[in-house]
C-alpha cells in the first residue's frame, strides 16, 4: 500500500494544509536538547535515524501532490524561482538521474524508471506523468532537466559548483524558502550567501562546514536539520513576496497562536554529483502547527525550553520577535520542568485526540 496523498490541501489563501496523526509523529522535530545553538550538526545521510523522514534518500509524504501543485503556482507567477547557469548542464542531468533513481527505488509503487541505453521512460503515478526521453538530450523533455525533475519533488534544491576551493550557488529551484532569494544569491560563493547569518561566522561554523563539504564524497551524502517559524502553513515565504506574508506576523493573538504558528523544519541533504562534481543541496521543508506540537508531551516541553533560552540575535534573525513572547507564555503553562530524554524522537506512539 502506498502513501495516501492529500491532494486538495493548500499552502495559501484558505491554508487547508493539515498533518495526519502519522505525519505529526514522523515530524523531524529539530531539538535533541533543551538549548539550541548553531553548530556543524552534519551527519552521514544513511537510510536510518531517529525520525522516519531519514529512511529514504528523498522523503515523500502525504503532502507530495499538493506541494508539487504549489510549486507550479509559484513558478507561474515568477519563473525566475528556477534558474541554472549555463555551465551547470551536466549537473542538471546528474540531478535528474539521482532523483529518478532514488524515487523509483524507494517508492516503486509510485514511481518507475526503465532505461535502454539513453532511451529512458519515467512514470510518476501521483502526478499522472508518463515521459519517454533521451538522457542527455534536453530537447526531448518538456523543459530543462533540472526544472523537469524538481517540479516533481518536495522541497527546494540548489546546485553548488565546486571550483577554486570554494562552492558557488550556480543554480536552483526555490519556491518553498525561508526568506532568501535565489535571484539575489545566484553565483555567490559559500561565505557570501551565508553572509546574513548571525553569530555562526564568529565561531567558525562556515569555515569548517566549507572544508567539510569540499571533501564531500560521491555516494556518501550528508544531512542536517535547520528550523525557523512561520505564520500559517505557507511554503512560499520569499523576499519577493514579503508583502503577502510579512503582515501575517501581526495577526497572531493568544487565541489563535496554536493554529497559526508553525514550526518550520528543513531537512537539508547534500549529495556529490558524479558527472559534474557539483553538490546538490536539498532543502526539504516540513510544517507543523503549535497545536499539533502540543499533542506530543516531550516536544511541547522542549520547544518551551529552547525558545526560552534562544539568544536574542537568533530570535531576531529567525523573525520570531513579534510572537516569541506569546508562544513562550502559552508553552510555559504546559512545561512542568521534568527532565526530557535526549534526541528528537517523540517518545510516544499515539496522539491524544
Amino acid at each position, binding site marked *: 500500500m502506498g502513501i495516501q496523498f492529500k491532494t486538495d490541501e493548500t499552502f495559501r489563501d484558505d491554508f487547508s494544509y493539515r498533518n495526519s496523526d502519522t505525519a505529526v509523529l514522523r515530524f523531524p522535530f529539530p531539538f535533541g536538547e533543551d538549548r539550541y545553538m548553531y553548530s*556543524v*550538526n552534519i551527519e552521514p545521510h*544513511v*537510510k536510518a535515524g531517529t525520525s522516519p523522514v531519514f529512511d529514504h534518500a528523498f522523503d515523500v509524504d502525504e503532502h507530495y501532490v499538493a506541494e508539487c501543485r504549489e510549486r507550479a503556482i509559484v513558478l507561474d507567477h515568477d519563473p525566475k524561482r528556477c534558474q541554472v547557469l549555463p555551465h551547470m548542464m551536466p549537473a542538471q542531468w546528474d540531478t535528474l*538521474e539521482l532523483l529518478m533513481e532514488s524515487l523509483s527505488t524507494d517508492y516503486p509503487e509510485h514511481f518507475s524508471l526503465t532505461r535502454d541505453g539513453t532511451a529512458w521512460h519515467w512514470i510518476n503515478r501521483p502526478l499522472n506523468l508518463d515521459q519517454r526521453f533521451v538522457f542527455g538530450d534536453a530537447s526531448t523533455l518538456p523543459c530543462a532537466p533540472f526544472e523537469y525533475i524538481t517540479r516533481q519533488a518536495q522541497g527546494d534544491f540548489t546546485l553548488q559548483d565546486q*571550483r577554486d576551493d570554494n562552492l558557488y550557488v550556480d543554480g536552483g529551484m526555490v519556491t518553498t524558502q525561508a526568506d532568501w532569494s535565489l535571484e539575489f544569491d545566484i553565483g555567490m560563493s559559500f561565505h557570501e550567501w551565508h553572509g546574513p547569518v548571525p553569530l555562526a561566522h564568529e565561531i567558525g561554523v562556515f569555515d569548517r562546514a566549507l572544508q567539510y563539504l569540499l571533501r564531500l564524497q*560521491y555516494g556518501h551524502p550528508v544531512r542536517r536539520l535547520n528550523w525557523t517559524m512561520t505564520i500559517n502553513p505557507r511554503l512560499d515565504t520569499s523576499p519577493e513576496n514579503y508583502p503577502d506574508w510579512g503582515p501575517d506576523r501581526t495577526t497572531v493573538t493568544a487565541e489563535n497562536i496554536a493554529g497559526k504558528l508553525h514550526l518550520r523544519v528543513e531537512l537539508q541533504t547534500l549529495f556529490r554529483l*558524479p558527472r559534474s562534481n557539483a553538490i546538490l543541496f536539498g532543502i526539504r521543508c516540513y510544517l507543523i502547527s503549535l497545536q499539533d506540537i502540543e499533542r506530543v508531551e516531550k516536544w511541547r516541553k522542549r520547544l518551551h525550553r529552547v525558545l526560552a533560552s534562544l539568544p536574542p540575535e537568533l530570535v531576531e534573525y529567525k523573525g520570531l520577535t513579534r510572537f516569541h513572547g506569546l508562544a513562550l507564555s502559552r508553552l510555559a503553562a504546559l512545561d512542568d520542568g521534568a527532565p526530557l530524554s535526549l534526541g528528537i524522537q517523540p517518545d510516544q506512539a499515539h496522539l491524544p485526540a
Partner: protein
Amino acid sequence: MILDGKLAARVAEIELLNPTLKRFRFVPESGGAFPTSPPGAHVLVTLRGPDRVWQNAYSLVTPPDQRDHYAIIVRRVPDSRGGSHFLHDWLTIGDAVELSAPASLFPIASLARKHILIAGGIGLTPFLSYRPVLALRGSAYELHQFCAPDEVETFRALLGSESTGVHVHGVGRGERPDLAAILADQPLGTHVYTCGPQGLMDAVEETARGLGWTPHAIHRESFGGDKGGEPFTVTLARSGRSIAVGASQTLLEALEGEGIEAPCLCRGGACGVCLLPLVDGIPDHRDHVLSDAEKAEGRLIATCVSRARSGTLVLDF
C-alpha cells in the same frame, strides 16, 4: 545515490595490452548496474590473497554512463610484492573482488574553456574516462601522452587513431618532455590536468606556474590518501586497553572495531563531536576543527581523521 559498503563484483575479462599492462573488466556480482562513475574517478580494489589483503586505488577507464561494467588498467611493477603482482599473476576470470564506491578527486573543471591533459605512462588512465565526456560536451581539449619509446604503439592503440589534439610522445632515457611548448601559448581560461610519475606532475605544475598560469587552473591527480597512513597503537588510559590502528583504517574505526562506543557525528573532521583528550603521544592533526594553537598544544585529537606521528597515542577515554 546512497552507497553503503563495498560494491561486490566479479572479474569478467582480462586483456593483455603489452607485457606489463593488463586491462581488467569487472561486472556487478548480482547483475544490474554499478553507480554512475565520475570522470577521473578511482576505486579502491580489495584483493584477498592467500596470505594478506591489499586495498589498492586504480582509476576507472570507463566513462560515467558505462554502468554494466567498470574497467581498470594495471601495470605490473617489477619485483612487485603488492597488489599489481597479485592482479597480474593470480586474478582470473570469475574471481570475486570488492570495489569501493568510485571517488572523485580529479574532476573536470566546469568553467574551463579548454582542457590540456598531460599523462606519463600508465597515468593516462583517468584521461581515458575524461575523453568521452569532453567529446560529448563538445569541449576543446589536447591530450599529451608521454611514455617510453617501446610503449608508444600500446598507448596509440589505447587512444585509437591519433585524432586532432591527441599526441603520444616517446621519451627516451635522459630526455625530458618539452612541457613549455605545450603550455606556453594557450588561450585564457585553459586548464591543465596531469597524472603520472611525481616528477612529471611536479614539472607540469612548475612549468605552468612559471608561465603565469593561475594555481586554480592546474590540477593533478591524487588518490587522496587522507584517511590512511602509518599504523600505530592507541592506549585508552581509563581501561588500559591497547588497540592497533591499521594503515587503512581511522582511529575511530579501530575503536569501533573493538566495540568501543566513541563519540562521532560527521566522520570528516568538521563537527568536533569526536574530539578526545590526548594524554601522551604526538598527533598528526588532519581535522578542520582545532585551531593552529590547539593543534600545537596537542591536548585533543579528532579520532575520525587524525592519526599519530609517534608509535603510540594515549587517550583519556
